[in-house]
């Protein structure tokens, strides 16, 4: 299962790779990373059929996670991409917007990786 993680913090890559090292090692999951909304769009245009789940931060300079969500939902209707939004600000407005734009789930930072793993497992099954 291909998962694209979008966050402007580069260390997110190392963190995910270590947190999911067993899943990666077993080939259960595979991660790619983009460090901005724009980068994510470029990546999706190249690999869009491979990616099943997008985990995106909302607060990024430039294209925000919510904008990315809008673009993804518009540009890549088929196959339907699962999008999970992650934000440092767990405010209702962002949640409402994310859901209205068609996000599948909404998480607040700091991310509890045990919960995230569960959610991913659910989404896959």
């Amino acid at each position: 299962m291909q998962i694209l993680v979008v966050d402007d913090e580069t260390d997110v890559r190392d963190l995910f790779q270590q947190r999911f090292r067993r899943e990666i090692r077993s080939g259960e999951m595979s991660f790619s990373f983009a460090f901005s909304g724009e980068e994510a769009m470029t990546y999706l245009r190249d690999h869009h059929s491979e990616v099943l789940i997008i985990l995106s931060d909302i607060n990024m300079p430039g294209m925000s996670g919510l904008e990315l969500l809008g673009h993804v939902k518009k540009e890549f209707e088929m196959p339907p991409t699962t999008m999970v939004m992650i934000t440092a600000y767990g405010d209702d407005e962002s949640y409402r917007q994310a859901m209205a734009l068609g996000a599948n789930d909404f998480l607040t930072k700091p991310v509890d990786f045990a919960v995230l793993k569960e959610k991913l497992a659910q989404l896959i099954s």
Partner: protein
Amino acid sequence: MVRGLRRFLDLPARLAWNNILNYIWVPSIALAFAAWVFKLRVPVLVDGYWLFVLLTVAAVLVALRDYRPARTLLLALAPFLLNKLLEFILAGADGRLTTRLDQLVDSTQGFAITWLIAFIIIARSQKKGLEKERLQREEEERAKRLIEAQNVELERLVLERTAALTLQAEELRAALTELRTTQAQLVQSEKMASLGELTAGIAHEIQNPLNFVNNFADVSVEMLTELSEEQARPIRDPDLEAELLADIAQNLQKIHHHGQRAASIVKGMLEHSRASTGERQPTNLNHLADEYLRLAYQGLRAKDKTFNATLNTDFAPDLPLVPAIGPDLGRVLLNLFGNAFYAVRQRQLRGEAGYAPTVAVSTHQRGDQLEIRVRDNGSGIPEAVRQKIFQPFFTTKPSGEGTGLGLSLSYDIVTQGHGGTLTVSSEEGSFTEFLISLPVK
């Protein structure tokens, strides 16, 4: 005659023995009595008495010789008196004169009387002149007294006025002191207000590294457990063990890195709130601009979650360090970024189609000057407003949102604190650009 003399010469005021003159008739009674008792010859006695009276008058005049009309009268009387005296002496005991002498005495007497009258008239006019002079003097005296009284009054008024002015000056000084205190408080509160704006940004900025610290520490513990499990196995996988060890070492470095990141943010915050030491340190403008751009952006984002802007940075590589008071210059940048974000936000809220809020910061070396440009694509600043933006308390924000001190303080910090310049250029509906120019040395 005595009364006439008295009035003419104002005797009561001038002569101590004035009252004795009241008894001038006493000798005449005494003589008349003596004449009757001793059967003396009356004409001689009468002449003698008249001579006595004239001498008395002369004595009075001599006593009053300091008074000019009296002197004139004395002069007037002198020939007549002399004439009478001569007549009396020459007449001898029988009271008769030889005819020749009688003629001489008569003719000189005529002259003496004319002289007397003439001089009395002169004395009168002298007296009048003196009287006039005296009146004039009195008038002057009165005028002088009046002037003195007026002077005293003026003096009093001046004193009163001076007291009022002193009081006023005192009040003004107190007001000025109060204003200075208020200004200092405002400067501090502006600082605190910008710190308040910073707090949200700082919280976010600290939250991120802290999350990493927690996550990497957590995952490292997991990996250590995995490592010890691996070591306990009968068939060990050295590659996996090496990988785990390398990852753990890397994680510890990351924990250190993010810990440092949080610490430097806290340090920056403390520096910002502290009163400026005014000490210039070699400063990397690129780092400073980047740091405060993030803080300003995150601060705004924390308040307004729906806001998003494109941040463009164009930092000149190999920019020399510039002597600067970091926290002060940071405040300037924070203020400029804050304004830029506010401007693009306002334009965005107006719902212009296809509008992409963008804030750009760039650094540049131009000769011996380093430049920082902060540019936004907001609505721009009209010319009329542009002239006022560096004035204290000028703000275009709704009341309660801006102190109107941000740019004014920024201007002072750049120009007075760093010997640089802060200028603005703008085009309505297009952009606003602030340019900080600092001397390298």
